């Protein structure tokens, strides 16, 4: 089983890196872009015998306690069986 965690900056937090990336991409001639936000992606291989629901709960806790900083970031968890 695999857990996938997406960590993104909260909409209210400025993302200077995303802004710089957007600028570079626009220099290449891509003009239809209104915004780029950079985030983090984690793949967690789960070796135990837990159910998908248990894996989701555990991953949510990991994402909340470690992988994200809830003050500035949101996260989303997907479980792949």
């Amino acid at each position, binding site marked *: 089983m695999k857990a996938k965690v997406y960590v993104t900056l909260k909409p209210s937090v*400025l993302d200077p890196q995303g802004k710089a990336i957007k600028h570079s991409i626009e220099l290449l001639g891509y003009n239809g872009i209104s915004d780029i936000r950079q985030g983090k992606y984690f793949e967690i291989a789960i070796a135990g015998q837990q159910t998908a629901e248990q894996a989701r709960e555990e991953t949510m806790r990991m994402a909340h306690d*470690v992988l994200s900083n809830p003050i500035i970031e949101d996260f989303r968890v997907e479980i792949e069986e």
Partner: protein
Amino acid sequence: MKFGVIVFPGSNCDHDAYHVISKHVGQPVDFIWHRDTDLRSYDAVIIPGGFSYGDYLRAGALARFSPVMNSVKEFAAKGNLVLGICNGFQILCEAGLLPGALIRNRDLHFICDHIDVRVESTNTPFTHELKAGGVLRMPIAHADGNFVCDEGTLDELRREDRIVFRYCDRDGQATEAANPNGSRDNIAGICNRERNVMGLMPHPERACEDLLGSSDGRDVFRSLAGTLATAA
């Protein structure tokens, strides 16, 4: 009066802090390895600058899980003094001992420069010997010093006089141009509600000798030592 300087893998201002305490404050000081958990013999703990755990994940995020940090939380909860400098400030925010977070600098550069900060609050154990409104020159050296917090937290920090330092120009004006990293409200340092935990991005420990360009940081350590001497 005994000081401890916590050493994480990747700390690199630990020796500077140690040097200042032993040479300028003239008090006993130990390095505390991050796996140690016994802080009973210390009166104040310094979390130094550097790149603990290589800044992996987020600056300060992994250091927060080192065994010593539970002890630091208990140490602080008892009212003992904790000073976090640069990476130490980031760690204190990640650990929830200070509010807010420090994200990538507005202009993305790693900034290594001498800057000026204005003393906003002298009502802390770390700044009571400073002059309110005075300007201190200290170095900064960080990529993630951009202080962010929500509106409610900012109101609380202002209302409770917990913004200790603001980035300013030479004349003491906290202008946008004098804000090196985009920090909200030019915030360079804050303290907790109980005022015994302070974090700041500038390095007072690297500004204690004229030879190094400034000795303005000495008064921070003089205040700290003065507080402990009074308490003893």
